[in-house]
């Protein structure tokens, strides 16, 4: 396993032509040995392109890719020793599971006896040793993905394993089992894994560090907890959390005493509550919906949706108000954002310092 770092990587398709399209801008990332890292973002934000650059299927137009400090920009995928698991199981259907697992080893001219022991070991690790002699057709997608994962694990020299939304095609009931297995293996073997997903729950349960991507940039890299508590960018706040962060423009909420230059105030559903009492810096809102999530001692807890001017706001609280009534919204220590980026205290977070 190895330490993967990306320094100021940018990529454009059809570079230096009229139809040049920039897909990645100034990506810097440091993934230490043995860590589980997630790339999180909606589709079309350049996650897969970034993965291809790491695996060597694409050569970035700018920047450096270092594996253990060695620049590998132009190395072929074969030379990089990186493995990948795809969205849909990619297997060689005409050969047995055993041969599928042995394929990367055979390509690297590993001696036959070693191939046998390594394949055996890997299969036991993944609990697919009973499938080895059979063909890959007819396996469930869950098993197929395990075999694809096995193709990555079978190489002991692999520097990192890339996972491109590996749970997409798996049957819903098996999703958590596979995720569990992945996490288990990652920790047990201290593998460097880079996991691409658009599902924040997957990312948060899997990774130690998460990079949130938006429009070809990484807008924040942090631990799951930090992402929730200190979103560096409006988009992170909005994207992470169920539901996401609420935003109010500062020009109509002077009562929150925003710092100079702030354009928006953001707060999570549990950073605010609505009640019938007016506080000293509360906002008047109309309650429009209540959604109960649990009941405790006869009181319902859940999500409350209210409307301030035209903006819908959700809070997580006791549901003791009537839908349609007017009430007061109390906000506890909101974050302030300027041009999208969060302001820390009075100082503004500088761009790219994520």
């Amino acid at each position, binding site marked *: 396993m190895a330490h993967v770092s990306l320094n100021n990587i940018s990529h454009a398709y059809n570079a230096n032509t009229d139809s040049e399209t920039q897909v990645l801008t100034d990506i810097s990332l440091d993934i230490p040995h043995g860590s589980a890292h997630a790339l999180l973002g909606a589709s079309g934000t350049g996650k897969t392109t970034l993965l*291809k650059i790491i*695996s*060597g*299927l694409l050569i970035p137009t700018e920047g450096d890719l270092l594996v253990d400090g060695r620049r590998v920009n132009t190395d*072929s*995928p*074969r030379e990089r020793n*990186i*493995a*990948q698991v*795809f*969205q*849909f199981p*990619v297997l*060689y*259907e*005409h*050969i047995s599971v055993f041969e599928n697992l042995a*394929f*990367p080893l055979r*390509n*690297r001219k590993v001696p036959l006896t070693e191939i046998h022991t390594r394949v055996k070991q890997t299969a036991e690790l993944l609990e697919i040793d009973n499938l080895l002699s059979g063909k890959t*057709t*007819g396996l469930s997608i869950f098993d197929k993905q395990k075999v*694809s994962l096995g*193709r990555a694990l079978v190489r002991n020299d692999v520097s990192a394993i890339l996972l491109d939304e590996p749970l997409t095609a798996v049957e819903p009931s098996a999703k958590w089992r596979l995720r569990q297995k992945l996490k288990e293996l990652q920790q047990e073997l201290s593998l460097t894994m880079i996991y691409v997903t658009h599902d924040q729950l997957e990312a948060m349960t899997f990774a130690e560090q998460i990079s949130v991507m938006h429009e070809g940039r990484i807008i924040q890299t942090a631990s799951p907890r930090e992402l929730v508590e200190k979103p560096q960018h409006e988009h992170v706040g909005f994207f992470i959390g169920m539901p996401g962060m609420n935003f109010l423009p500062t020009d109509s909420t002077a009562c929150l005493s925003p710092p100079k230059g702030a354009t928006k105030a953001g707060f999570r559903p549990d950073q605010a509550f609505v009640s019938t009492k007016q506080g000293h810096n509360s906002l008047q809102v109309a309650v429009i919906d209540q959604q109960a999530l649990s009941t405790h001692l006869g009181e319902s807890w859940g999500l409350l949706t209210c409307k301030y001017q035209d903006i819908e706001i959700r809070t997580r609280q006791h549901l003791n108000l009537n839908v349609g009534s007017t009430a007061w919204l109390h906000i506890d220590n909101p974050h302030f954002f300027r041009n999208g980026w969060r302001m820390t205290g009075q100082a503004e977070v500088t761009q790219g310092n994520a």
Partner: protein
Amino acid sequence: MRKRINNRAWLMVLPVLFLVAMSAVIPLMTVVNYSVQDIFDDNNRVYVGLEWFIQIIRDPELHAALWRQILFSANVLAIEIPLGILIAKAMPRRGSVATGLLIFFAIPLLIPWNVVGTIWQIFARPDIGMAGMSLTSLGLDYNYTANPVDAWFTLVAMDVWHWTSLVVLLVFSGLRAIPEAYYEAAQIDGANRWQMFRHIELPRLKTVLGIAVLLRLMDSLMIYTEPFVLTGGGPGNSTTFLSQYLTRMAVGQFDLGPAAAFSLVYFIMILTLCWLFYSLISPAEEQTER
């Protein structure tokens, strides 16, 4: 998901059945009837048993035609299938260039077969043909109407010209159906070009290649019109294939009985070959769920 069993589906197949019965079963029965009789006219025919079959099956001229036929089909398949794969692999996978090439390559397939013969007749003649004139001016003694070897070469060149495109189109569409991720996975697994072809493309092309071989095998075994126009089966009998022989017998000499017996033997041969091939390529697919 399994298909539902529903024997009423037969009703939907009935029109096809009726039409094909009209154009295949009744004629085939008629051929069987002809094959056991000596027919002079409608009301004057004699039952001769298996006489025609014995005569036909032991006919040395027919044996010669059969060997020529086998040699020709083998020749043509051995050239067209690899060549078709090569060209399909060389084509750009997408874009307007690919579409343009496809239309262009499809042209020979859409030319009436006798016109194909005519084109090659015009093209290869030593006096007025481009190829013929070029070969002659290079000092080669080329004349496909007089020299059997030249005729054979011309015929194979013509068939390759005519039919390779079919293989190209089939293989190309098969290649295009392979998801990009397979190539990426193989690259990451460290496979080289040959291994990618061997382990990704070839297995996924199995079905289309099967169809290509089957179609080319059937059609080359039935070849009639093109050699009829180009060489007329000559010089001598050097390019007389089974269909030529049959047509000459049936239409030329009006030997209904022997022609019918020959037809049946011919049909059974092709049927057996195709059935063997069909059962070789289809069983794996039968049970796979999609």
